């Protein structure tokens, strides 16, 4: 079985095309993990807990969400950290935290197996994620919070729509509920998706972003303890729940953790932790919220529909951030004294709820009321029966994923009905119109792929599914396109500036004036001596602090240009120094002045010599644009990171790799061709112009091309002095 899958893999043209060492390494691990997972599948029947290290529960986390999980010096702290300890104790294990990893890599790590048993890092339980991994039962309820500067907090608090404007930038943690919320509720604002909530807060405090949306408890903690100039402007009742991530291959572990969780809830440990870390006992709150229901009076009351939004059909553009599946979000406030026992939502007949998943959230204020719902889809209607009636005055949110809007798109209104606990029927007022766009051919290809047996077979191989899931590859290519174009634009626009600046500083560095040489040295050494990442951070967070606000993309261009210019200055300087002294002397003996010598004799030769090095630098710059994703520039890596975070699958990164290679491979080829041409030209082997007598004469005269290149008079002057003599400070000119 294992052998078979490997052989099949090797035959794949796509994999052949990506014959990178990186991919090959992964390929090997992929094969081995496929064998281990097939082993575990066979053990599934025996319900045995699989652990990476015997006697240990290995946990992957980003440890960057105080007060849930964070590092204080080298010790791990937080609510979640203590919870994991307690859970492990119940299972008779000790906890082993891996080094902090990036949020987007946690789910793939757990899924692939072999490194971590569980992931715990404020993971909101979502349908998208559930496709890749299992969640334990929720261990805490949460909401989102909008943080702004203290000055704007009250205006945002009274109306979030002040943020729903172009020119407003809102930072979120990529792939989180907060991101989806901003996408759906602040469609006019620009969303910047970052790795962790802390960078989002840093950005708001420096003025780079107008607001940040992230998990409310984290925001409250940070605003109180670290970012005291900011405040939580508004709490967004999402009623989301956090769960622990476990591999689908390890159901026994999920089961055991759920059991332990139940015990901890029962014996009050969970409440103790909550009181310790949040000062609030959420467990007691939700219990009391649930208890406030029902006295029958037979009145239908009313249901006020407050919201109906959708992530419409796949459009491949940047709206895709935060998820790739269609989703309908419907919210209403119930004013029914008896409580609502079921709700039926209806869309026009060409839409369909078949095959959809419904998530029910009931909130009283910010407190979640745990009420399960059972959804039955039937064509264009879906009926949700609640396990217990929805109490009067609750906010009911229904999130229906994977429902289908018609391919041609259009505007839709949600209508429907509800039934009270007393059995009285009421009609739901029609929602606001939801605009959906038509399904792209891409989405139709994906739908077609979904139905292909070979795709199912392919995806059953864990490695192939993880790195080359066909459906995701197709959608990734489309979603990443915009990011790729931005990468190219950034590097292509920044490059002429980098060249110009590089030349300027190269000239300064060989100038006669000490001040100019010193300035150039400082500039070049500072930029070459520090990581680009740091320069990006300083520029993005630093400039707004001193009151300079530049568009992120423009700032990206500026940073890339400045960084690259330092490297190019050195390339040009070396190129200029490599021009033999005889060239300066020949120019001088014709009476050329310094500028004429530079521009007609030295620079044209230098340019030829540096083309390969500069092209290599261009390749580096192009790849380095990926670092801009850390400050929220919507480039290639940003899109792939988002897709990977929401899907827990590596395929989007593979698509990104292909996008990088599309540009870099031809350029690498160009470099080698140019290098060969240059070598030929220096050796005098280059093509000769057509000339009748040419061949004969040459044969008679023989060759001695090389001597032209070298200064035939040997003198023990260094290259620098050689240059300095005619250009920097000509002796006779100084007299």
């Amino acid at each position, binding site marked *: 079985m294992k052998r078979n899958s490997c052989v099949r893999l090797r035959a794949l043209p796509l994999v052949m095309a990506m014959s990178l060492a990186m991919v090959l390494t992964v390929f090997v691990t992929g094969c081995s993990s496929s064998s281990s997972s097939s082993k575990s599948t066979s053990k599934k029947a025996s319900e045995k807990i699989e652990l990476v290290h015997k006697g240990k529960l290995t946990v992957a986390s980003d440890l960057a969400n105080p007060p849930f999980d964070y590092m204080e010096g080298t010790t791990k702290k937080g609510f979640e950290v203590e919870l994991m300890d307690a859970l492990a104790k119940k299972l008779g294990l000790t906890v082993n935290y891996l080094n902090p990893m990036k949020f987007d890599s946690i789910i793939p790590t757990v899924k692939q197996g072999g490194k971590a048993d569980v992931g715990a890092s404020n993971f909101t339980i979502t349908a998208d994620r559930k496709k890749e991994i299992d969640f334990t039962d929720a261990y805490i309820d949460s909401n989102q919070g909008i943080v702004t500067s203290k000055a704007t907090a009250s205006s945002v608090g009274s109306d979030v729509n002040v943020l729903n404007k172009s020119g407003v930038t809102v930072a979120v943690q990529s792939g989180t509920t907060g991101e989806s919320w901003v996408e759906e509720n602040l469609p006019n604002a620009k969303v910047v998706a970052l790795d962790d909530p802390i960078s989002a807060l840093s950005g708001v405090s420096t003025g780079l972003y107008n607001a940040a949306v992230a998990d409310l408890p984290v925001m409250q903690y940070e605003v109180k303890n670290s970012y005291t100039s900011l405040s939580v402007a508004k709490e967004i009742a999402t009623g989301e729940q956090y769960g622990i991530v476990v591999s689908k291959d390890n159901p026994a572990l999920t089961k055991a953790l759920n059991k332990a969780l139940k015990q901890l809830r029962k014996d009050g440990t969970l409440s103790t932790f909550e009181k310790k870390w949040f000062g609030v006992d959420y467990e007691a709150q939700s219990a009391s919220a649930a208890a406030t229901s029902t006295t029958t009076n037979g009145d239908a009351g009313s249901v006020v529909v407050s919201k109906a939004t959708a992530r419409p059909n796949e459009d491949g553009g940047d709206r895709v951030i935060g998820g790739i599946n269609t989703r309908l979000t419907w919210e209403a406030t119930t004013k029914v004294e008896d409580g609502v026992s079921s709700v039926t939502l209806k869309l026009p007949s060409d839409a369909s709820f078949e095959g959809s998943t419904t998530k029910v959230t009931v909130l009283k204020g910010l407190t979640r009321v745990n009420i399960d719902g059972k959804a039955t889809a039937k064509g264009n209607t879906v009926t949700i029966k609640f396990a217990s009636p929805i109490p009067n005055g609750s906010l009911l949110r229904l999130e229906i994923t994977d429902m289908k809007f018609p391919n041609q798109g259009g505007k839709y209104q949600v209508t429907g009905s509800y039934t009270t606990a007393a059995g009285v029927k009421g009609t739901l007022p029609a929602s606001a119109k939801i605009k959906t766009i038509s399904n792209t051919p891409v989405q139709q290809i994906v739908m077609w792929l979904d139905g292909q047996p070979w795709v199912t077979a392919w995806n059953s191989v864990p490695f192939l599914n993880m790195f080359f899931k066909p459906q995701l590859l197709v959608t990734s290519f489309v979603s990443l396109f915009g990011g790729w174009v931005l990468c190219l634009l950034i590097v292509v626009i920044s490059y002429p500036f980098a060249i110009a600046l590089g030349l300027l500083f190269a000239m300064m560095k060989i100038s006669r004036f000490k001040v100019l040489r010193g300035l150039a040295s400082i500039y070049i050494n500072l930029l070459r001596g520090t990581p680009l990442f740091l320069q990006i951070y300083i520029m993005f967070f630093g400039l707004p602090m001193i009151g300079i606000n530049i568009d992120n993309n423009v700032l990206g261009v500026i940073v890339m240009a400045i960084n690259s210019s330092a490297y190019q200055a050195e390339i040009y300087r070396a190129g200029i120094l490599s021009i*033999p002294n*005889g*060239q300066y*002397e*020949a*120019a*001088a*003996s*014709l*009476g*050329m*002045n310094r500028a*004429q010598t530079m521009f*007609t*004799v030295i620079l*044209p*030769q230098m340019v*030829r010599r540096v083309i390969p090095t500069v092209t290599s630098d261009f390749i580096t710059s192009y790849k380095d644009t990926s670092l801009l994703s850390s400050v929220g520039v919507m480039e290639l890596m940003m899109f792939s990171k988002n897709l990977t975070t929401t899907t827990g699958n590596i395929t989007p990164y593979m698509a990104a790799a292909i996008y990088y290679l599309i540009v870099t491979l031809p350029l690498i080829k160009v470099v080698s061709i140019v290098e060969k041409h240059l070598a030929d*030209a*220096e*050796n*005098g082997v*280059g093509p*000769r*112009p057509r*000339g*009748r*007598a*040419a061949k004969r004469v*040459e044969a008679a*005269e*023989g*060759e*001695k*091309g090389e*001597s*032209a*290149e*070298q*200064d*035939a*008079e040997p003198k023990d002057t260094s290259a620098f002095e050689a240059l300095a*003599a*005619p250009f920097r*400070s*000509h*002796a*006779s*000119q*100084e*007299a």
Partner: protein
Amino acid sequence: MKSFMKSGAKELEVPPAMDAEEAARKAYEHDQGLTKHTFKPGEHPIVRIEHLNKTFTDTPVLRDVNLDVWNGEIVVVLGPSGSGKSTMLRCINMLETPTAGHILIEDQEITGSKKTDVNKLRRDLGMVFQGFNLFPHMTALENVMVGQVKVLKKPKEEARVEALKQLKAVGLADRADYKPPQLSGGQQQRVAIARAVAMHPKVILFDEPTSALDPELVRDVLNVMRDLALHSGMTMIVVTHEMDFARDVADRVVFMEGGVVVEQGLPSEVFDHPKAQRTKEFLGHIR
């Protein structure tokens, strides 16, 4: 470089440049019988070298060189390697700064002239290097045109006509569109000569123009130089080891050794009846 000047100036004290009339009179007397070139009483030498000293770090390379060159004269400088011949040419062309002494072109002192004058003065001086130093990114034609266009500000068409004329004169009209790496050494050197001549300098300096060439390529270059010497009327100072060329073409032969002019005179005198012991040894050694 400044430090050379300072240390040199401290060690060496030379008299100021002579008055033009007095220098012309002295040169007239001194050079009588030393050159085939004819010059009239009252004529001024085109190049005057007085008490020229050049010290590199602590090594004296030129020690009190005195030489006058007349308009239209062909002077061949001989001497063993390291005797300072190139340094002298480079001082004349301002590629080196003398430590002390004076160089005057048409009675105008070039040593110690201001920066802005240097490039202007250089237009009157052409130079042909041992290593050709053609611009490898330009065709032969462009090499010959570039100085005329950039420095003399000639219109391109005019420069092209002149360049083609000079390339034809050196026998390379059919190589106008070749780039230097595609040409043989001999062809490159001839292009370099065309490039210098196209600027119509008053004096053209040759620094061992054939030394880097394979023997079979030397003849063509020498023929071009001979042609130039006989027909152009240009003043030429030629450093070379080609004795036959010196004997045939030179108006005067100057023998240098150890940074001093050891002997000078008519080619026949110097070659057949050398006076100084060093000259005898050198010529004997060469043969």
